[in-house]
């Protein structure tokens, strides 16, 4: 699913975010990315869907050589990857329904399919009755669930979540995790960057720890491993 070999990333301002990473993630895996703030977690994630480009190394995602993609091909890579952001990144002037539908309009689905599928995922995240609201009218947890709905609406092979529970209260966080597990159970690869010791230690999955731009630890059914 994802294969990174000898990947380095130095930002234009000289900050070395990723300093030589080799990693392989298989289809259907559920992986936590942990590590201190500023250690390179976000960069690692951004490299996968080409929001950032590595300085050196090779990255293959879903059979596509990410570095060789032309500008015009990048959107097509992103259509196979659903991304859930810590700050939700919802379109503020569109309704909940329109936000989720957008991901399907992009790939040119028929209005009929769009209606059916959007209501389906809104049901899955428990927001069917909020379809006509705009994001600002909803709580943080609800907004996060919309962004999950948008990320999974076109059946992506890979779901990336960058601290999806970062701004949420514990109850809501568990609700989000339940949804992510459900999606993973359907065969979707899930990669989740998190700072939540509780979640990582309770729902045991593969844990990749990134420190100073390097993989410090990679274990199946691992522990969070940091003091909070």
């Amino acid at each position: 699913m994802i294969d990174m070999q000898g990947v380095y990333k130095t930002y234009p301002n000289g900050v070395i975010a990723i300093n030589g990473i080799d990693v392989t993630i298989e289809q259907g895996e559920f992986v936590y990315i942990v590590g201190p703030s500023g250690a390179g977690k976000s960069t690692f994630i951004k490299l996968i869907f080409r929001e950032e480009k590595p300085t050196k190394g090779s990255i293959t995602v879903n059979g596509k050589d990410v570095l060789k993609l032309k500008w015009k091909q990048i959107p097509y890579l992103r259509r196979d990857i659903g991304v859930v952001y810590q700050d939700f990144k919802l379109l503020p002037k569109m309704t909940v329904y329109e936000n989720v539908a957008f991901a399907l309009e992009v790939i040119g689905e028929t209005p009929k399919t769009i209606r059916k599928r959007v209501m389906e995922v809104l049901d899955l995240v428990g927001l069917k009755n909020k379809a006509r609201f705009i994001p600002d009218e909803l709580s943080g947890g609800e907004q996060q669930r919309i962004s999950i709905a948008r990320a999974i609406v076109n059946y992506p092979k890979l779901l990336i979540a960058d601290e999806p529970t970062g701004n949420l209260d514990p109850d809501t966080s568990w609700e989000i995790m339940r949804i992510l597990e459900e999606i993973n159970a359907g065969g979707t690869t899930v990669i989740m960057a998190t700072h939540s010791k509780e979640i990582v230690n309770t729902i045991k999955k593969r844990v990749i720890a990134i420190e100073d731009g390097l993989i410090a630890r990679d274990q199946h059914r691992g522990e969070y491993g940091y003091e909070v």
Partner: protein
Amino acid sequence: MAMKFRTMKRHFREGAKNIWRNSWMTIASVGAVTTTLVLVGAFLALMLNLSHIAGNLEEDVEIKAFVDLTAEQAEIDAIGAEIEEISEVSLVEFSTKEEELEGLIESMGDEGQVWELYEQDNPLSHAYIVKTTDPLDTVSVASQIEAIENVEKVNYGQDVVQNLFTFNNYARNIGLVLIIGLVFTAIFLISNTIKITIMARRKEIEIMKLVGATNGFIRWPFFVEGLLLGVLGSIIPIAAIVTGYYYLSNNVSSLTQFEFVELLSFNPFAWQLSLLILAIGASIGVWGSVMSVRKFLKV
């Protein structure tokens, strides 16, 4: 790549929705378009009419070549033939001295009756009335005619014509420069307003790209939005110009003392001008919107 019809429909729907979604920005942009188009429209109407009036005046310019009193009929015909040889000449008309006198009497009105005394012993000369294809050639043609044998003198309102041509020339050039300047100011102002409104939406554009939208997919609704902004912005200018021009063209003769002032007729001029304003508005809207969005597409 051929776009699916439903995707095209989606872009139009989305572009129209954006007009509502960003209502404050819509008001700002439409306001800018409206203001500048009212100026451009009024100025265009003024300049085109001035040019039209100037053209009319120039059309009226004619050269009168008076034939020497002693010339025989054959010599008179020879003059006519020679004038017709001049390539810039479009029309030559012979007017006998009797016709000349008649014209003179008529133009004098009641006082003209005094001149009827001369009907028995006409002191006037035969004349050729000459028009040039391009009124601007009047002066050079006149001097050519003057050189012809048996032409006593030529008259074309020398001083007035020279001043008229110089004035018209200035007026047209200055008008052209002003219009170009005004249109550029309009483009600058409007595209800047639109740019600011789109700047506020750069986050949205970024999000769309992260969800996997192609540049074209993002750009199309903006294209539609810009088009609609331009069209909305031209409604008030067009209404103002059509009503204003209707009023003016109906009342101009009573408002001015000059009979020669004749405006371009309301139909079709007002409609042509409206169409022009609509076209300017729409293209500025589209241009401003598409240019501004282009910057944020590299995510």
